[in-house]
């Protein structure tokens, strides 16, 4: 769930934009470096942006019986790396604001911070940590996608709590209030997205292992 246009006070909107800017700049620098080494990456990142955007058009069955759409945070971070996901995520969020009226321009910085920075970096960190302690590949992918998705909404709750502290309970009570509202939909959604990402990687590892090896996502023993 993106923060809507005009919802954050000016100071918060500017603050989150300033906080996001270095990550997007670093992401652009890393993307530029990749394109210089491999010019075909320009097309890959462009098409990957469309892929991330259209994931939000897929209806996913949730464990509560309702349905929602995947965010693609974990999938994108594992496939393309967290640094590339910052500019890709920024463009996807801009598309969502302008083509679907989800999110906004003044809240773009805050939305980039939660969905294109915290989510992908957390997913990638969890995935790498899981691999380093020799957890099974599927478990790593599930944890990366599910926890990355949840942390995205925890960050959004923090952003809203900082902007609108509860008159009685302060920032913490406000955080609990927003997190509780998000939890109703996002906890089942995170579990569903984790399962979906595992199904995706299983299908890719079975039918297209070469592409995953090229992206350093799997090694030969994982495929076996």
């Amino acid at each position, binding site marked *: 769930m993106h923060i*809507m*246009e*005009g*919802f954050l006070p000016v100071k918060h909107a500017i603050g989150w934009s300033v906080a996001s800017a270095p990550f997007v700049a670093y992401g*652009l620098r890393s993307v*530029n470096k990749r394109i210089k080494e491999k*010019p*075909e990456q*320009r*097309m*890959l*990142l*462009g*098409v*990957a*942006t*469309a*892929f991330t*955007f*259209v994931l939000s*058009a*897929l209806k*996913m*069955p949730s464990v509560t*019986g309702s349905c929602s759409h995947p965010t693609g945070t974990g999938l994108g971070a594992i496939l393309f790396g967290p640094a590339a996901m910052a*500019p*890709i995520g*920024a*463009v*996807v969020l801009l*598309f969502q*604001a*302008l*083509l*679907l*009226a*989800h999110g*906004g*321009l*003044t809240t773009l910085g805050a939305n980039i911070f939660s969905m294109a920075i915290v989510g992908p970096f957390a997913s990638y960190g969890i995935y790498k940590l899981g691999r380093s302690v020799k957890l099974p590949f599927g478990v790593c992918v599930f944890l990366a996608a599910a926890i990355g998705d949840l942390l995205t909404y925890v960050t959004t709750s923090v952003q809203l709590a900082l902007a*609108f502290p*509860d*008159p*009685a*309970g302060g920032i913490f*009570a406000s955080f*609990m*209030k*927003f997190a509780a*509202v998000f939890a109703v939909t996002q906890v089942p959604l995170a579990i569903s997205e984790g*399962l*979906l990402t595992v*199904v*995706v*990687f*299983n*299908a*890719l590892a079975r*039918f*297209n292992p070469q592409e995953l090896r090229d992206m350093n996502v799997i090694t030969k023993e994982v495929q076996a």
Partner: protein
Amino acid sequence: MLIEQCAYTNRWRQVSPAAKGLFTSCGIVAAFVARSPLTTCCLAVIILAVAVVGARVSLFRFLKVALPAVLFLAVSAATLAVSVRWGGFPLRLQFHLVNKAELSHIALTCSRSLCGISALMFFSLTTPMTDIICLLRKLKFPEVMLDIMTLGYRALFVFLEVIHDTRTAQMARLGYATPRLAMRSLGILTANLTLQVWQRSNALHQAALARNNDGSLMFLEDEYHRPVLTLLTASCSGCALIALAMVPL
């Protein structure tokens, strides 16, 4: 996508995107400048009227596109209006409605957001993405970002069609009959889409190489109807919006 259809078919399609962008920016600034919910609601209605009367965007389409955002806004307003604290015996969470001063602050926040949504809708319903990318190029946005936007925008319609066709084929084979089957079908669909990211990007790269591409992607720009005059009109209208926002109601 409904927004895209409106953006290409409205009366102001040939008006400079810089003018429409300037008016939108002024609308958003006015939303933040206004100090009463009534003023911001009036501003939202004025911007909507400009889109409907000026650009001939259908009122039904405008409201249909804005409806999900307005529903989210209503949920957010309800969340803000309730205060939570621990209390009572035995200790439990207590929910209270916030006081009158806080309620007026929430009303201002929500009306500001409503005005911002109206301004954003005006821009997206009257300006196609290709024009927005051209505008960002003039504003010296990083080339890589613009390339990602250009390629992403062109590829997303291809992917949307692939999703539609694949889902139709899967549904015809009862692929979504149960939640378990639905998850499996969706996983296969997403894996197939993921693979197409490489296939299509390789094809695009080969096509670009065949045209001696060695850097950024360049496209011809549209010519707009009286760009200076429309920019002047937009700046005057935008200033009028900001001036109106300063009027205490």
